[in-house]
């Protein structure tokens, strides 16, 4: 083993035993090295085996249904980690190798203060006394850039924001000066601006402590800025491994090329996004032309929202109430066949706007004129007719389909409720046609949602909306939960449907690149207020508001020659 290699993975093969004893291969014998003092990024989509790899290194896989091939080897400084047991294993975890997870909130114990939780790690591994450990915890919190660390050390996890919680997790991970830090999607649950800060922090700490970092992510764009080496995984195999420069400049594997191209870019807007199949086929990918976007004077306005407001009552004390203004004075117009993108971070009120328009929330003020009639002032009976014409697609494809319904029931229910199609046979036929339209086979009708992948479920959700032939479709973070390659497919589908049916989209997302790709006009929201509004090209080229500039600066740019 090379002196400079910290961790060596050889022929790592992991299978999971299913309920009926059948084996599913999650890792098909992978090999890679983590050199000392370097950052290695493990990139792959869901199901690629990237998380399984990290859990296998830490021996966190459930022993009950995991089968690790006896020929597998994970060597850390000359010791075989897979052979470690009991006390040795515990000593290795936390002290030599530390890990941070995606969800900081569920990784922190809610009934202990964050200072105590960090101190506990120190008392266990560094053998410090309680008082020293707490002092060190405060020092660590200072190091990870938590404002007012003395006070925050005595705070409970729920009193901190998501970004602050992740900082606490990082402080806990570096508490014992580990030689290897495994970061499993550490920024996926965070807003873009916070994501940027956390990544910067990780990069700084890596340099300062001279540790190695194994950075696991689904977003190839993220790793360009601060990883040294990249390992691209798919279906439990390593597709390509190399330095970041090589991966970004001269990717050899078609899958890597596809991943780099699937994500919408800020500086181009192709007619159709590239998908993985484009690269896997012989002939390769031919870049289509550019699409021009923007509102035009001749557009027919079908939805005119004026001074929309929504506030919630928050209980305070025993009887007190406080008003929380989720949306304040939002106005916009949506023409036929065009897309208005709404961007903002969590808590900006963008989702509330969408839910208020379909009356899943009751607005507290303003008007929403749909073909001249105010949607918000209608009685529930009057609005029933309009539900058909304005539909919503939710973020989480795993939660938005009733798990006890077959796809046939899911698709025919809205038609039945609105009297579309005379008999069930007719409705089933229409459902079949729609399934075909969104690219799913007709035999899917008799299946249940859990039998489909995330992207397929989102297609079903789209088909459900289309059954009603709506005019306006509200997409509430509809592609955020999907893998990059699947995201591209769904975005392409939405675009095709818009071209075909002249649909108008209200596209709500936190992802600026996606919004830029699909929107004609963009509305930037922050804390319930509109910060800026205008044609997407104009806003992205020359943002007027400071907040918009901050958002744009936080977008990961991928690998840049000057950054290397």
């Amino acid at each position, binding site marked *: 083993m090379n002196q400079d290699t910290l961790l060596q993975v050889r022929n790592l093969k992991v299978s999971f035993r299913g309920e009926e004893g059948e084996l599913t291969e999650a890792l098909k014998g992978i090999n890679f090295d983590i050199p000392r003092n370097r950052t290695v990024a493990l990139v792959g989509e869901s199901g690629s085996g990237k998380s399984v790899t990290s859990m296998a290194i830490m021996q966190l896989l459930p022993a009950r249904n995991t089968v690790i091939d006896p020929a597998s080897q994970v060597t850390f400084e000359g010791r075989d980690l897979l052979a470690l047991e009991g006390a040795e294993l515990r000593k290795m975890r936390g002290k030599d190798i530390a890990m941070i997870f995606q969800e900081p909130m569920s990784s922190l114990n809610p009934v202990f203060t964050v200072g105590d939780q960090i101190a506990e790690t120190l008392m266990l591994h560094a053998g410090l006394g309680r008082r020293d450990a707490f002092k060190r915890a405060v020092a660590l919190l200072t190091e990870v850039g938590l404002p007012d660390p003395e006070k925050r050390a005595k705070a409970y996890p729920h009193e901190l924001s998501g970004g602050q919680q992740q900082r606490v997790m990082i402080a806990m991970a570096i508490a014992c000066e580990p030689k290897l830090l495994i970061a499993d999607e550490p920024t996926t649950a965070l807003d873009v601006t916070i994501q940027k800060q956390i990544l910067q922090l990780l990069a700084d700490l890596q340099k300062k402590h001279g540790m190695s970092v194994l950075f696991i992510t689904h977003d190839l764009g993220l790793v360009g800025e601060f990883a040294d080496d990249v390992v691209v995984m798919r279906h439990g195999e390593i597709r390509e491994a190399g330095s970041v420069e090589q991966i970004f400049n001269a990717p050899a594997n078609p899958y890597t090329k596809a991943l780099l191209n699937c994500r919408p870019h800020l500086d181009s807007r192709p007619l159709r996004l590239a998908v993985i199949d484009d690269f896997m086929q012989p002939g390769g990918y031919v870049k289509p032309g550019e699409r021009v976007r923007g509102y035009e004077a001749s557009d027919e306005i079908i939805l005119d929202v004026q001074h929309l407001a929504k506030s919630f009552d928050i209980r305070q004390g025993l009887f007190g109430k406080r008003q929380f203004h989720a949306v304040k004075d939002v106005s916009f117009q949506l023409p036929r066949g065009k897309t208005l993108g709404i961007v903002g971070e969590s808590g900006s009120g963008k989702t509330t706007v969408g839910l208020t328009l379909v009356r899943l929330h009751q607005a507290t003020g303003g008007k929403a004129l749909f073909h001249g009639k105010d949607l918000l002032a209608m009685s529930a009976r009057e609005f029933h007719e309009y539900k058909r014409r304005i539909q919503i697609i939710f973020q989480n494809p795993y939660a938005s389909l009733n798990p006890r319904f077959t796809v046939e029931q899911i698709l025919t229910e809205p038609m039945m*409720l609105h009297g579309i199609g005379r008999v069930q046979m007719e409705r089933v036929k229409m459902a079949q046609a729609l399934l075909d339209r969104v690219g799913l086979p007709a035999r899917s009708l008799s299946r249940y949602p859990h039998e489909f992948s995330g992207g397929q479920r989102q297609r079903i959700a789209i088909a459900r909306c289309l059954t009603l032939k709506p005019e306006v479709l509200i997409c509430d973070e509809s592609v955020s939960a999907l893998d990059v390659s699947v995201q591209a497919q769904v975005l392409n589908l939405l675009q095709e449907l818009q071209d075909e049916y002249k649909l108008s989209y209200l596209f709500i997302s936190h992802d600026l690149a996606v919004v830029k790709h699909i929107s004609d006009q963009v509305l930037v929201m922050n804390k319930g207020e509109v910060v800026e509004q205008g044609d997407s090209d104009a806003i992205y080229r020359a943002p007027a508001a400071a907040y918009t500039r901050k958002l744009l600066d936080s977008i990961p740019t991928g690998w840049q020659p000057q950054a290397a």
Partner: protein
Amino acid sequence: MTTMINQAAPAATETRPQRGLWAMGWRRLKRNKVAFCSFWVVMAYMLLAVAGWLNILGDGWRAQIAVPYAPPSFLAKTVADTLPPEAPVAGGTASAPALIMVTPEEDPIGKEMEIARQNMGKYATANDAKLESLPFGADLRGRDVIHKTLKGASTSIFVGLLGALLSIVIGTSLGSVAGYFGGKVDDFLNWFYSVFTSVPDMLLLLSFAAVAGRGIKTIIIVMALTSWTGTFRLVRAEYLKLRSREYVQAASAIGASDARRMFVHILPNISHLLLVQFSLLTVALIKYEAILSFLGFGVGVTQVSLGSMLAEAPAELVQGFWWQMVAVTIAMSLLVTTFSLLIDGLRDALDPKAR
């Protein structure tokens, strides 16, 4: 952990088509040997119960076919020796004529006695050939313990099942309304619930039973009225959680009415919980019935249940006649144990998280 399961799932779908939750639950139950055996035992009990209601089984439990406390046949000889002598009873009737010194003319009821003696043949019951022993003994009136146990178990299961069903219906309807609508409706129903649960269960059960009198119908209603509270809390919590789920919101967005969302969209999603709750309640109510009958508030005197059989046990045990109690104990513990094991299995098999 979750990522792992997600990764395993797509591969499984490719190889073998999966079905709905119930089909998967059944497969999982089959794999759990203990639960699966319990399932068949419980099913056998259910068959027995149905046979009992249709009077196919245990119908002859009222027939007094043996001598009082006839012992089980496998013990017949030894117990016969220790049986109390019948002499006092026989001696009493035999010595009566000797004591009466009046002539028929002097006797004030002599004529009636004469007529009665002549008609005796008409009313005499055919109690001539009383059996000395039965396969599992007899009770005080010489009724077959096996028949009695069969019929009693059938009654108990009937009471348990119907009581649990009624209780689930009450709990689910109140719980779903409270959880779905929230606000004032929820406040009111919670208040109602709190008042109900503030009274000790047994006291409530006994006071209801005391007011309503004996009988199977009463006991079912009484038990349902006192046992819906657990289901109410469970269902209310589930509705609170599920009503804001995206698929319910999506149903609202496509124009589904409140009732449709409550019963077509949400209810099937908690049906597995209700099944487990129903099984739990059935076991609990079978036990409650036994307690009530034991205390004398249970089934009527003309009916038999496991509880009313147990009520006879103390007096018998003092005299050393243990078979009725043992029969009831075996029947009841086997039922309750297998039912409980089955519930455990069901809970695991139907747990969506285990998927």
